[in-house]
């Protein structure tokens, strides 16, 4: 049986009706209509579905949508403001942190959570914080450089 659910995504409240077994990722993509977060492994391994819940990274495939009620959800669509890219997005482009792009929304959200809590991380801290985000285009060096560049720009 469907339940009414109110989700706060990127500062906007969405009213949706969902079955309680649905995971947050599928509801964000299909009911809310934001397709930035990706389904990669569907098993909490790859991080393509990473969103922020109350500012902290969460694999949205392993959270029930019902559990996200009343919490602050951030997705990649909320990064750019006023038509201007977030410094992390700019740095990912400039440093070649993007190849196929499938992992990028998750990478960006983990990187944002990192910089919000640790504005000037070391390379080792960046690698550890992004350890739940897999890139299969072997783009890690560019990604680490991009996070450093965004940190320096703050």
């Amino acid at each position, binding site marked *: 049986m469907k339940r009414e659910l109110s989700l706060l995504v990127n500062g906007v409240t969405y009213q949706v009706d969902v079955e309680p077994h649905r995971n947050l990722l599928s509801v964000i993509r299909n009911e809310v209509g934001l397709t930035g977060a990706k389904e990669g492994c569907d098993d909490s391994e790859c991080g393509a579905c990473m969103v922020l819940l109350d500012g*902290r990274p*969460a694999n949205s495939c*392993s959270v029930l949508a019902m559990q996200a009620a009343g919490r602050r959800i951030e997705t990649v669509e909320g990064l750019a403001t006023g038509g201007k890219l977030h410094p992390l997005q700019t740095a990912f482009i400039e440093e070649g942190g993007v190849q196929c792009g499938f992992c990028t929304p998750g990478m960006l959200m983990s990187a944002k959570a990192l910089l919000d809590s640790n504005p000037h991380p070391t390379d080792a801290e960046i690698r550890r914080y992004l350890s739940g*985000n897999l890139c299969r285009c072997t783009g890690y060096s560019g990604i680490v450089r991009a996070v450093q560049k965004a940190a320096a720009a703050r």
Partner: protein
Amino acid sequence: MSVEYFEAADLKQARDYLGRNPKAAVLAGGTDLVVGTRSGKRSLPDAIVAIHRLSELRGIEEQRRGALRLGALTSHADIESSEVVVRSWTALSDASALVGSPATRHLGTIGGNVCNASPAMEVGSPLLVFDARVELTSKRRKRTLPFSEFVTGPGRTAAEAGEMVTAVLLPALNRRPPVGSAYLRLEYRQAMEIAVVGAAAALAVDGRGKCKWARIAITAVAPTCLRASAAEDMLAGHKLTADVIDEAARAAAAVAKPIDDVRASAEYRREMVTVIVSRAIARAAARAQAGSR
């Protein structure tokens, strides 16, 4: 697929719901339950009671005379960054810092972790060497039992219908001479990994390098994490020389009951118990001695 979902606002609601629906699954962070049901590892329960809003179950509390209480909803991120755990219960913070990824550690809870009862759970051996107890609450009563009796097999616990884990308790340790502890694992990668073999050691070491008492436990080499008391007996009363450590590590390997699986053969696992236990002892001893200076 029809699932009943109930979100408890407080412990009484959760307890009462479980009293009425003893087969309901308790949902905390979701990192095991939600993932496991989707991948077909287990069937989805008919009823879920979500407890993630019960703030009274979250937090680390130092109790009288040096005991520690970890609420069931305390996350691995809370544990790995807790000053008191890092200082005095180091093997446990070592373990929590190894779980999954930052996202897993923010969502995953110690209560959920022990209920999942994986033979490879990182916190299992640290909880064994600290003689941890598990607090279970139901509508009728509250009881505690040793962690060693709580996990009864892979994915199986002694929790009865209608009971939920509300805390993990670490009793006070005699810290004179100073105690050091460590957990480490054999891993093929540094993140999003499951222990191939793991080991925890807790030791009290006096100023002359003599081990007063020792506790050793091993991970991912038996149906549950396992204490290795034969190894402990070989350390107690001795100076921790390389030979003594090696002999104790071999005694630990002798109690392992490993299996062949996708991560390693049983034979390799047994060999590696010796290596990982030796390293855990050496690291715990170094920490005990650093504490005595």
